[in-house]
């Protein structure tokens, strides 16, 4: 990696002070914030980013807090994935979040990786990760995956980049209706997590979220889910550790054997966590059976446009939806 200066501020004021200005879009990567480093170190070593300064968040007190009040959770950006995975109360109230955290990488990565880092991690597209392939995502002119080897790329929401968002927590937290607390030079703002992630066609193609150059993610707030049952079902090619080929974050409120309310978000199929609102609406009033799963699967994948090597993601995502809904109905 390229040499950089390393700083460890002790307050959020100092952190944002060290970051570029809100409009310094071109030079924003001169400063990178470091959390668990599980993604950033790889990026540094592969020379995908060459910051002049690395700002470690770990000196800021309180950022790792994980607290609950009346069933609602506040998750500090530095809370580790292991902390979510192992929290019994969270697992009981927001099963999908604990399951998603537990499905990330390996034990080592979960011990080290943080919620903020997980949500702000960069794409895994192998063209993106290859220093020599300067694609659109890296300021080039072309998406190499589009006409190239795209087995792991998007079938929904793609173009001009076809990444899939790599985070497992993201679909789960979006399904849980979470909001993101963001801190910049001008102060704090909150954004629904669903709006935090940006499609390559709507935000800057070289980014995956709404954070301005001067901003960091501080906390994720998750509302209570009393009466809901939820799950995160992830398919990995290699179960020992792997990113999702596709994943389903599902939450249902069932009354009298029928769905009263539903949330369905797909992971691993689109550049953002893919909320399936039509499918959610269709679920309401139905009982979970084979026909419901089929209908919901069709609606969830509506508009999918597979590339040359990833048509399998359609049956896969549908299969995972069936698994998730059946699991919730029989739990």
């Amino acid at each position, binding site marked *: 990696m390229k040499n950089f200066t390393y700083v460890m501020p002790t307050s959020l004021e100092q952190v944002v002070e060290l970051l570029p200005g809100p409009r310094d879009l071109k030079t924003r990567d001169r400063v990178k914030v470091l959390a668990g480093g599980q993604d950033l170190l790889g990026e540094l070593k592969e*020379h995908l980013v060459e910051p002049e300064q690395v700002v470690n968040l770990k000196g800021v007190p309180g950022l790792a807090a994980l607290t609950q009040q009346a069933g609602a959770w506040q998750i500090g950006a530095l809370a580790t994935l292991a902390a979510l995975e192992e929290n019994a109360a969270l697992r009981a109230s927001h099963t999908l979040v604990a399951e998603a955290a537990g499905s990330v990488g390996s034990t080592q990565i979960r011990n080290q990786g943080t919620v903020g880092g997980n949500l702000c991690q960069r794409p895994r597209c192998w063209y993106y990760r290859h220093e020599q392939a300067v694609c659109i995502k890296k300021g080039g002119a072309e998406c190499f995956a589009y006409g190239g080897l795209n087995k792991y790329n998007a079938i929904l929401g793609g173009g001009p980049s076809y990444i899939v968002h790599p985070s497992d927590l993201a679909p789960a937290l979006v399904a849980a209706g979470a909001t993101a607390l963001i801190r910049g030079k001008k102060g704090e703002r909150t954004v629904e997590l669903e709006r935090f992630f940006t499609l390559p066609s709507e935000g800057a193609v070289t980014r995956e979220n709404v954070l301005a150059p001067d901003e960091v993610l501080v906390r994720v707030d998750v509302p209570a889910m009393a009466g809901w049952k939820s799950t995160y079902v992830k398919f990995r090619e290699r179960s020992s550790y792997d990113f999702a080929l596709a994943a389903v974050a599902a939450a249902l409120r069932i009354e009298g054997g029928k769905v009263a309310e539903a949330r369905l978000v797909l992971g691993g199929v689109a550049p953002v966590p893919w909320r399936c609102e039509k499918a959610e609406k269709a679920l309401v009033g139905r009982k979970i059976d084979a026909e419901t799963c089929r209908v919901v699967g069709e609606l969830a994948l509506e508009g999918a446009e597979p590339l040359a090597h990833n048509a399998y993601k359609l049956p*896969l995502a549908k299969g995972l939806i069936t698994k998730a809904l059946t699991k919730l109905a029989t739990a």
Partner: protein
Amino acid sequence: MALEPLKFQDEKPPRPAAPGKKWIRVTKAVNGIDTEVWEEVSDDAGGPQWGPRDQMRLVSRAIPRVDGPDKVSGRAMYSSDMRLPGMVYARVLRSRVPCGTVKLDLEAAKAIPGVLAVIALNNGNIDWLGRPIAAVAATTPELAEDGLRAIVATYEEQPFAVTPEQSAAENAPKVNSRGNVRTLSKNTDSSEVDAALGKAAKRVQGTWKIPVQHHASLETHGVVVDYRGGAEATIYASTQGTFTIPGDAAGRLGLQGGQVTAVVEHMGGGFGSKFGMGIEGDAACQLAKELGRPVHLMLDRATEFHAAGNRSGGEHTLEAGLDDKGQIVAIKGRVTRHGGVGQGSGHPIPYIYGRDAKVFVEDRCIHTHTDSSRAMRGPGHPQASFSMEALMDECAYASGLDLLEIRRINLADNRRELYMRQLERCAALIGWDKHPFKNAPDLSKSELKVGIGFAIARWGGGGNGQCKVEVRIAQDGSVEVLSGTQDLGTGTRTYCASIVAEELGLELGAVRPRIGRSTFGSANASGGSTTSPSLSPSVKHAAHNARLALFEKVAPLLGVKPDELAVGLGEIHVAAKPSQKIAWKDACAALGPAGLSAQGEWQAHLASSDVGGAQAAKVQVDTLTGEIKVLDMVAVQNCGLLLNRMAVKSQLQGGMVQALSYGLFEERVLDPDLGLFLNANFEDYKIAGVREIPRMQVEFEDDPRGVIGMAEAAVIPGHSAIANAVRNACGVRVFDMPVTADKVLVGLEALRKKG
């Protein structure tokens, strides 16, 4: 007509053995091409004997490796762990383009403080992707890295062909002057086979594709060259051949072979890819010579993937003609090897089955602008096994025959008994009798489905006479066994000690094995499963000679003749009267201060060759996701004398794991348009992890033969059994490895559409 080098195991030696001689079959890997040859060797049965197995204490038992504690505690020094005073770190720069020329400007790199030397490694011509073009030595690894990035490489890129499809296309860029697509077989007349196919009752065909696999050794290729000027050098090498190093290195350093010592205390895996110094070793020598300081050069992981060899991929188009009883009467095929700029190991098709069929196989290779393949554990056999075992199952399904029955019918008479016994035992271990889908795959609509698959393997595993071993007994009773050989993690060090301890009546810990040094007795390189059948007889011989020499000294003390003596545990006694004895320490005290040294050479009668094994796999396929879960793998293996049951069992298990990983995950991925290697890392080049490992059972069929190398047979059949089990479970035949969920899902959709 089978092709030249691809011979059947049971083919006869060229002539009857001369008196006092016998024939053995050994595998020789030359430049990555494996060839199986017959060797006539002395069969002097008068020398040492292994003796009755039931009376053995250490050999033929299960003993933990003597170097295990060092390895798990980190005390073991691998070549890459060497740190020497004044040592510098080196890295190599690899070509960014597959084909073209490059001009290097090294000045900026040289100007970096701490960068000590920068050298160009070739003349600027590039004919494969990732070819090392320059090397940098610096005071730290990070500075060496900085040095690499400061080299200004100006490429003139030429059109390239990194995939076989590109290379075989019309007007494809030339990979070499011999042609991109080369036919290697001599026979061009297929009329006999065509006629037999024409008359066949049924015909079964398919085209199977095999990806390029990487050795993926945990320790990458590299050396530490300790040369500080003067007349001597020591090379710490991660190699499969201690004695492949000094000559190569001497040439580079301008020394004589005898002035260079190679040291290989521990090495972190090679699987056929680590013979000789390689480009990286040459670079390290050049840098050491320039600087007069020790140089540490281990490849980084990406360079290891690009430039340190691989298992050749391939494509097999096969057609079998069957008679109405399920016997294969004709096999016609085209076997294409993908060996990069190399030619690839031969894929011996037809593999084991089809002995009585008429055979015509066109053998070809397609060259690409990628690193040459090298030998890899069982070169060519796992590839051949994959298509052949699939063909067998398809023949069974086409004929409505049981998967075992099709094999019984198509094994040669002299192989049938062995393989059917093994297959039936595998069947019993894996629960075949209760499995409902014996002659047709499960095409039902259930969500989770279970299937079973079988496959078999053969290997030579004979030894040769290159090993010289010394056993030393000191006056204080301590014992050492010395050989220059290397331990690839297979347990060589352990059996060196156990054979000597057994022979001398000592505890295992009383014998100190010293290996991995070219100043010790010569030894063969570890390839083709030849190490144990070559080395262990020589160790036995040396131990035997040491015992006889000691008896000479001790006999007068007990007032008997040497041949009246025998060893007991920690003592020497009169065979006919065990109470008349002398303790080991006291016996050794009779030696002079120089102690005793005995030499050993290869004893052909203590080794043997030819192993066969069968494996079966049971998998569960989830038809909703395509997920393949291997539930069980079983292996039944014949073996000769097992030097250490625990070590051979882990050889088998390791082979099964490596085959599972090959069948389900591993694949080199190159972008044909960009000419980039997309998964030269351990994240995207997927290898099975702990959660992928099934229940495993290994059974040995002990037989009275001598020692046979057991490494390769283990890795040959597993992936084929798994692919067959997937087909048996859900009806989907995945023709191209790795067999992954996406292919299963696409296959299931196609089956559904077909109804």
